[in-house]
């Protein structure tokens, strides 16, 4: 089984976001970069899938500038067999990234493709959908469990929908699955894994190699920080008095209950 993981490098969740002077993007100096947390679950699920099937290879792929190679090396250190870097220094949109990834998946004959349900920087949660359409495979998102059929020709994926309901979706392989937190617990990189990752040769593609032409489909601008909330009232008194006063204010002042 040719298992793929599409991952993205994002700023750490503790990052305090600052906007550039021309408001065209966020300030990217002094950022600690990490693998998108949801993609870590995808890496783990890919490795687990290989272990369960007792065969196959796991390949991690990402699109981005040179720094994103670090994310690929982390994936290899965790246990991925191969890594592919689609190198671009330009700011690219969902369509361009998905186009590049879909070309890689076709070229490399990927079969099961895992990715996180969303990247925590752009929060679009769209790459899985774009990619699956561009390669013309079925997909499912917000997946919390995967079960591959014994003949390895199809799988069942459990999808978390609203209000605690779950759907079990059946689909043929090849397919794309966007996984949610809770599907597994990502492993840490082992020391031998880290040593192996340092020396691992990473395959590089450019947009030109993959035939990704044409500009972006959207123009993004005017990044703004939300207005800071200021501290409000602290309610004093004993607990009973505090609660009575809170309910009164929520009702009469804030009018929210």
């Amino acid at each position, binding site marked *: 089984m040719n298992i793929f993981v599409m991952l993205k490098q994002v700023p750490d969740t503790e*990052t305090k976001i600052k906007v550039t002077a021309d408001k065209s993007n966020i300030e990217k100096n002094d950022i600690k970069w990490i693998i998108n947390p949801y993609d870590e679950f995808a890496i783990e699920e890919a490795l687990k899938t290989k272990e369960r099937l007792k065969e196959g290879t796991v390949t991690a792929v990402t699109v981005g500038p040179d720094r994103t190679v670090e994310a690929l090396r982390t994936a290899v250190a965790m246990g991925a067999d191969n890594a592919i870097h689609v190198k671009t220094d330009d700011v690219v949109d969902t369509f361009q990234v998905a186009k590049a990834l879909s070309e890689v998946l076709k070229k490399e004959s990927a079969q099961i493709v895992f990715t996180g349900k969303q990247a925590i920087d752009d*929060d*679009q949660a769209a790459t899985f959908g774009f990619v699956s359409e561009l390669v013309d495979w079925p997909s499912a998102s917000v997946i919390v469990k995967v079960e591959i059929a014994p003949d390895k020709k199809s799988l069942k994926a459990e999808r978390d929908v609203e209000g*605690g*309901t779950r759907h079990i*979706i059946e689909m043929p392989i090849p397919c794309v699955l966007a996984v949610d937190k809770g599907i597994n617990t990502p492993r840490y990189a082992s020391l031998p894994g880290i040593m192996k990752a340092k020396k691992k040769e990473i395959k590089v593609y450019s947009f030109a190699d993959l035939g990704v032409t044409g500009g972006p489909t959207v123009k993004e601008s005017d990044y703004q920080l939300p207005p800071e909330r200021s501290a409000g009232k*602290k309610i004093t008194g004993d*607990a009973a008095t*505090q609660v009575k006063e809170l309910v009164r204010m929520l009702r009469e002042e804030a009018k929210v209950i």
Partner: protein
Amino acid sequence: MSVFLVGEHKEGQLKRVTLEILGELLKQGTTPTVVLLGKGGMDSIAADIAKKGPTKVVCLENAALETYSTEGYANSLYAFLSKQGATAVVAGATSQGKDFMPRLAAKFQSGFAADCTEIKVVGDKVTVRRPVYAGKCTKAVEFLKSPAVFTVRPNVFPPAPDKGASAAVEKAAAEVGNIRAKIAQVIASTVKKVELTEADVIISGGRSLKNAENFKILQDCANVIGAAVGASRAAVDAGYAPHDMQVGQTGKTVSPKLYIACGISGAIQHLAGMRTSKVIVAINKDPEAPIFQKADYGIVGDLFEVVPLLTEELKKLKAQS
């Protein structure tokens, strides 16, 4: 300008987010066509939204649309909309909308913007604003290709009211195409939960809850006012609450009218997920907890004492009204 709003319905009821988007589009001077998908029998849902001011309502019907499928929705909408010369397609950023809209955008080879919180229509151009980094910042998105495809966050805009006049309702056969990923089984939730992203009131707990059983204290309070229960990452990682309850950058971003944070210190990644709540209440033992810096109302106290009192107080209020 030819705008199509994909309406969402569940158990014979239109989702509120559909009316919210309709209301905002009308406010922007754009009258959309509403598209509903299903196996048929959507007459009362269509009649309901037809009263709220769209150009018309189109029901795309096919037996295969009895249950939701990514491909069934994306294929049917693409087949229909590409004949209509749509300049914009919008749906709610619900679990369905988030699932099929990217696929639809890719079919059009169009740009896409998810979870928008502002829509601006000038002439025949739509621009949107959307939060990124879980709301630590927002950005404007302009679409360079037609149609613009985007989803709108629930609970941001007021729903469209009745307009008196009723728009025409049409029916058409949906071209569902090849559906490969199919729902084989639905596992209903054992408890009827209010969806976090659509809730008016959320009561959230942090690690101070100490264990999973204690979340019942919050649930009891939530039940009184029909609120949803949320959790911080610390509480989820400690195993006190399932991940679908997590609010924050690696969980759900919410904007209820009222957010009550119980025993949550206010880590940057949690604040990112709930900062757009209209009113924030913090209940925490530690008077120095950062959450108090963002809260409209703060109670320094033990949640195990304060929350049950709050539940009782809300019950009294409920009994009066």
